[in-house]
């Protein structure tokens, strides 16, 4: 028997009451009533710390058990899910285990689970959607930054031929690669790849190139981004990070939210640098296969970025590795692939 208090339907005035019986056949005796009633239970609040548990009956009346009452004993519900959870919640030993498990799981999810899941998701993304992303992004960038290329047709054919030879050397035609020429406008000397295989190169970048190999290296780098699906992986990794933040941040203050989102931005830059190194590596492979100089494009990058402070060094705030690091790592990769230095 539990001694508690009873609220009649829709009213805030409570009366002392007793509840007994078994689950499914309860007896409620409200003080002042002559007879106990047999109310039909519709909802019993789950066990949680020392929060008083409430029995809600069919007519809207509520019986409130005091904090220390053995409700599970009365209802025979010791084995119910939340009674078990609540016993875990009461145990310091389990809490200690849970702390280790939680940190371990979060770390491995972030360190290993996320990249694997992101690259799997990138592979299964429908190609139709990716093509839509290409045309949509190009349209937007055209409207905001670019104007049509001012190169003459013979120059375009020349660059296109280099591009085709690189595409062939890359030995993989999924997704299909496509080259676009644009006047860079405010973006100046630049090249970038869209996830669906569209690679854009600006007139200004071609003008700055002193040899075919220089811009070919840049094109091969962009082909690397496309074939390793870096843009899609980036999107999925960032989605995964915000999901993880949502997972653990259910009860966090606004200040903490701010710090975490700033940290996520830094993390996305780290991802970008990782992908840039990866694309550099792929560029070296493609260039060697096409019989070209794999480190020539570094000279072009140095020319482009010579006026930008900080572009020579890698830092935790940069989107690309610094030129010095790039030159070193690109040369090393080339050497391991038996490049003779010519």
């Amino acid at each position: 028997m539990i001694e508690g208090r009873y609220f009649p339907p829709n009213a805030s005035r409570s009366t002392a009451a007793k509840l007994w019986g078994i689950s499914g056949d309860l007896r409620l005796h409200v003080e002042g009533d002559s007879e106990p009633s047999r109310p039909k239970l519709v909802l019993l609040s789950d066990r949680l710390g020392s929060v008083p548990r409430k029995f809600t009956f069919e007519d809207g009346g509520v019986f409130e058990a005091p904090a220390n009452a053995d409700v599970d004993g009365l209802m025979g519900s010791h084995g119910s899910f939340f009674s078990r959870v609540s016993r875990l919640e009461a145990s310091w030993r389990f809490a200690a285990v849970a702390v280790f498990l939680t940190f371990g799981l979060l770390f491995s999810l972030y360190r290993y689970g996320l990249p694997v899941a992101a690259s799997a998701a990138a592979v299964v993304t429908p190609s139709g959607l990716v093509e839509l992303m290409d045309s949509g992004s190009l349209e937007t960038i055209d409207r905001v930054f670019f104007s049509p290329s001012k190169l003459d047709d013979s120059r375009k054919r020349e660059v296109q031929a280099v591009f085709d030879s690189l595409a062939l050397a890359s030995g993989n035609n999924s997704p299909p690669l496509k080259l676009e020429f644009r006047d860079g406008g405010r973006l100046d000397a630049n090249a970038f790849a869209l996830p669906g295989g569209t690679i854009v190169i600006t007139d200004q970048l071609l003008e700055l190139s002193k040899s075919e190999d220089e811009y070919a290296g840049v094109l091969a780098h962009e082909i690397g981004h496309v074939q390793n699906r870096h843009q899609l992986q980036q999107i999925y990794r960032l989605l995964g990070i915000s999901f993880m933040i949502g997972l653990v941040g259910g009860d966090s203050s606004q200040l903490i939210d701010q710090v975490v989102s700033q940290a996520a931005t830094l993390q996305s830059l780290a991802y970008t640098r990782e992908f840039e190194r990866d694309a550099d590596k792929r560029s070296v492979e493609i260039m060697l296969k096409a019989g070209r100089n794999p480190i020539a494009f570094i000279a072009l990058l140095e020319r482009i970025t010579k006026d930008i402070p900080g572009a020579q060094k890698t830092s935790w705030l940069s989107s690309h590795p610094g030129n010095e690091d790039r030159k070193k790592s690109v040369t090393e990769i080339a050497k391991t692939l038996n490049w003779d230095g010519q």
Partner: protein
Amino acid sequence: METLVANPKLDIRQHNFDFRGTASEYFRIWIVNLLLSIITIGIYTAWAKVRRLRYFYGNTFLDGHNFEYHGRPIQILIGRIIIIGIIVVINVLTQVNPLFGLLILPYLIALPWLINKAIGFNARMTSYRNVRFSFKGSYWGAFGVFVAMPIAAAMTAGLLGPVSSQLSSNYIGNRLKFGTAKFRTDAPLGALYGNWGVTIVFTLIVTAIAGSAGFGIGTVLSGFNTLAYTGTNGDIAEFLTAAPGISGIIGAYAALFLAFIFYSAGVRNLALNATTLEGGHALQSSISRLQYVWIAFSNFVLTLLTLSLMRPWAAIRSWRYLMANSAILAASSLDNFVDEAMPDGNVAAAEYLDIEGIDFGL
């Protein structure tokens, strides 16, 4: 049937809110919530939310009775799935065409409805003594208070901020009910401007202190760099050189956040002290702005330093402070309230505001 008539002969009794939760009990609930949420890749978050809110509401007592949270996990899970689905679709569309990201207009049109339904849901899921709260919004009222006024306040560089605070406090307060009893809020504009003025002084002082402290720490770090650091690690060297500027900015940024907390604490006092509940009851809030800022700031630092292990303690600490400084001046017994049937609001709207971190405290 009993009628509600205030009896002037009865003396007014002050009931303080009393929070009985403890950090050690909540820590274990929190870590179990977190672990189960991760293991179930997020599905348990809906149950976790209900347990967290039930813990806080259920341990909050007033005149010997506790509050209760009635949200159902399945319902909340469905709300979350809907909202996450919408967010993912919008993100995909933005990737397909970045111009979709600029579609702020439909969002602003939907916002008043979302806020009304969210406040409605949260009020409806809260009860005290078997009587539920409810909230009845109006679209254009919410549009004026939550869309037009904040824009006006931003365009006047904050000059209209107190007016915006007054209108939103009144909007929420005058549309909230406890059972059949209506709340009434008439936040005083003059005092809100006073709070605003004090906040500006507070901001200036704290910005000066935090900004220069940040700059000072950074300078020491970069001095350390030039004097002692002879390594070849570019990252560390660069970080040290940039340190004075960066930590100065972080300091100033933190100061603005503290100022916001300071201001909101003042608004809470003024709004609740100007709120009455049908039957001659009045609400009371007497939090100290400086103390509340200190609690928020030290909570933040400790949470960060302990990789969030102190978060449960911090959450309990600030809730306990808020409750300890809130009271109701009851003109008569609180036994005479009557519940009535009202619509439940919309769980997806509530989950949207929850996910976005938008919060309207009761």
